[in-house]
């Protein structure tokens, strides 16, 4: 019975490890994209033509 429990524990452990790995990498990439976009927005404001009256 312990082999059976171990085998199904392996299934859950591997599946969760894969799901967590994809999720963690996705979060990291999304955070980096957000940070870069906000930085890009700030920089583009510097280069953008001044608004009327500016």
């Amino acid at each position: 019975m312990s082999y059976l429990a171990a085998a199904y524990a392996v299934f859950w452990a591997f599946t969760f490890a894969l799901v967590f790995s994809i999720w963690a990498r996705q979060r990291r990439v999304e955070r980096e994209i957000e940070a870069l976009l906000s930085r890009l927005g700030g920089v583009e404001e510097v280069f953008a033509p001044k608004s009327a009256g500016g």
Partner: protein
Amino acid sequence: MRKDDIVGLVMAALSSAAVLIALGMVFLYAPREATMGDVQRIFYFHVASAWVGFFGFFVTFLAGIAYLARQERRWDILALSSVEIGLTFIAMAVVTGSLWARPAWGTYWTWEPRLTISAVQLLIYISYVMLRAAIENPQQKARFAAVYGIVAFVTVPLSWFAIRWWRTIHPDILTGGEGMALTARMVHTLLVSLGAFTLLYFTLLRQRVRLERAADALAGLKEHLSPIAYRESRIADRESRIADR
């Protein structure tokens, strides 16, 4: 919430439900095997894991051919994503197989043809991931990976036919080997497990492909940002010089 996210959530919910149904059938519907007892219940998820591993490598094989024919990044993304999932499930099949082998054969591991090919296959696909990481040029990486993925696929039919071509102690689920006579309920449970795992594969594949696309978008953004960051630093330099005067 975007449509893409909703599709992802629905797929995740469906595959989770399918796996839970399969699990319920393994423990509540499938009968206790007369010779091996409860430990035989490992078989359902073990076979399903191996199936998803083989299927994942098959998708990589097809994506490799498509990449070489069309040179489109999407095929490379599909190949890489599918290898990662296939590798996880083959590793799962090897470990669960060992846990079944201990009470059934009296040992966790024996160098018989199917197990040996599975171990070699695992190493070959781990090398695929490692070699990809070692190549800098994206086009060269994709081309090399496509060829590697096509050649590495030879391990799948080799593993499948190993139990028919050579003398082996590994049971054959199709012909029904020693101690492997499946009843109708066992077949139903196996089919549901195979279906649930296939659904899980497509759910994971979709998420993994999305991750790679997001990584591509990030790389593109960094490329776009680098000249702006350079100009930004030039402006800061000029402003500091003006302030110094």
